[in-house]
């Protein structure tokens, strides 16, 4: 029997996103030269929200792009269904820029690894930071996030789902046990 447990609701998520936006500004001493890139699927609306808060707090325009990492996955030979590849849109030159990668969940680190390779194929940014809403902790690669919404140590058999209004019905974070 599967059980669902809600970890974060809409209000709590909003507070976390605002805090993360402030942390990004604080750590980078403003947002000059900052370019935000969301990883498909849920990283993309998250990137837009974080960018919105940073723009509001700093009164500066932030560029937002999206990235599909399917072609960079290391498990292409194992997956049974072929995922639909979505458009990667980086409407800016990343050469020498400051890139903030955004994803919903960090777990094994393999998606982040693929995203780093994907980004580096566009050019050589000055540096790349990683922001995630949930860090589950089951790392298989030496990768850490610079900004974490919530640490949520979980077993591998559990799954964590971040729901967003833009894609799902509500803003919430759930733990699901099968």
């Amino acid at each position, binding site marked *: 029997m599967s059980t669902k447990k809600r970890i974060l609701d809409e209000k709590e998520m909003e507070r976390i996103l605002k805090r993360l936006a402030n942390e990004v500004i604080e750590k980078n001493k403003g947002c000059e030269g900052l370019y935000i890139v969301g990883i498909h699927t849920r990283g993309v609306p998250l990137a837009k929200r974080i960018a919105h808060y940073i723009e509001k707090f700093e009164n500066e325009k932030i560029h937002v792009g999206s990235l*599909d990492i399917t*072609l960079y996955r290391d498990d292409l*030979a194992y997956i049974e269904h072929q995922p639909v590849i979505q458009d990667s849109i980086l409407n800016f030159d990343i050469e020498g820029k400051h890139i903030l990668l955004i994803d919903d969940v960090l777990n094994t680190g393999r998606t982040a690894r693929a995203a780093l390779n994907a980004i580096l194929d566009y050019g050589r940014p000055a540096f790349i930071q990683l922001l995630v809403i949930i860090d589950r902790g089951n790392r298989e690669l030496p990768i850490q996030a610079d900004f974490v919404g919530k640490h949520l140590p979980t077993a591998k058999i559990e799954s964590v789902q971040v729901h967003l209004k833009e894609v799902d019905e509500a803003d919430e974070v759930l733990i699901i046990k099968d």
Partner: protein
Amino acid sequence: MKHTLNLTGRNLFDLDDYSVEEIEKIFETAKVMKEINSREYKKIPTLRGKTVATLFFEDSTRTRISFELATTRLSADVVSFTSTGSSLKKGESIQDTVYTLNAMGIDLYVVRHSCPGVPQLVNKYSNKPVLNAGDGRHAHPTQALLDMFSIWEKKGSLKGLKVAIVGDILHSRVVRSNLIGMKKMGADVVVCGPRTLMPPKIEEVYGATCEYDLKTAIKDADVVMALRMQLERQTEGLFPGLGEYTSRYGLSNKMLEFAKDDVLVMHPGPMNRGVEILPEVADSEHSIIIEQVTNGVAVRMALLFLILGGKPGREVA
């Protein structure tokens, strides 16, 4: 009806064994590949460690180079076999050639041959996926896919479009694959050319409309595709002369006025400028001939990715 949306391990002999959904999936994937080809660094690591062999028993420039570029841009390795300068000249059979290459660990074969059916033969001996890059007069499915992708990209869909294909229909494998694919995707196809270069029963077999008058054929057309007039057909006595052919079937600006205002002009190449198409048309704003070549690499990358990535076929409802 059941269909597999997973193309892993599939052959591509012709478009008749591909469904509408599968063809659309190839188009969607090709769109992404096209973006990669427009980057400064045109390479992704997706098919690292795979090896593709291109077996060209017949001459080719664009198709072979297009396949080889597609392969290397996905980080797979490519070995290139051409029948001239190979052991075929010493009498080695296709069967033994394939056994030899297979023993060196080829994952996928791209095959062109002047005899129909050789791609199937290579599949039989290798037990590896085979992409047909043109077999005799039979089929040239990757050319048809890139032609259809070029239209799909500009028009959003092929449904209800009038496509006129003009020229030597009899000897063209490009036409046969395009007829199957375009009809499947919902286009109305008109074929047009001299009677001596028109295969019998093309209307019954392919559901195409057949016209011998160019004006009628391209009237209100959304797409006009000219085919290469192979000069050796003249010595075979199939048409009287190039001048006469051009005056009756050559695409000129004057002729194009009968088509729709936003007509797309296409040509699979290589072109005989001034014969089947006048330079004023080939270089006009309607022409997407050069873009067809660009799209060819993207479509072939999509096919290689979909066929070499993932686990072999799982049926989905």
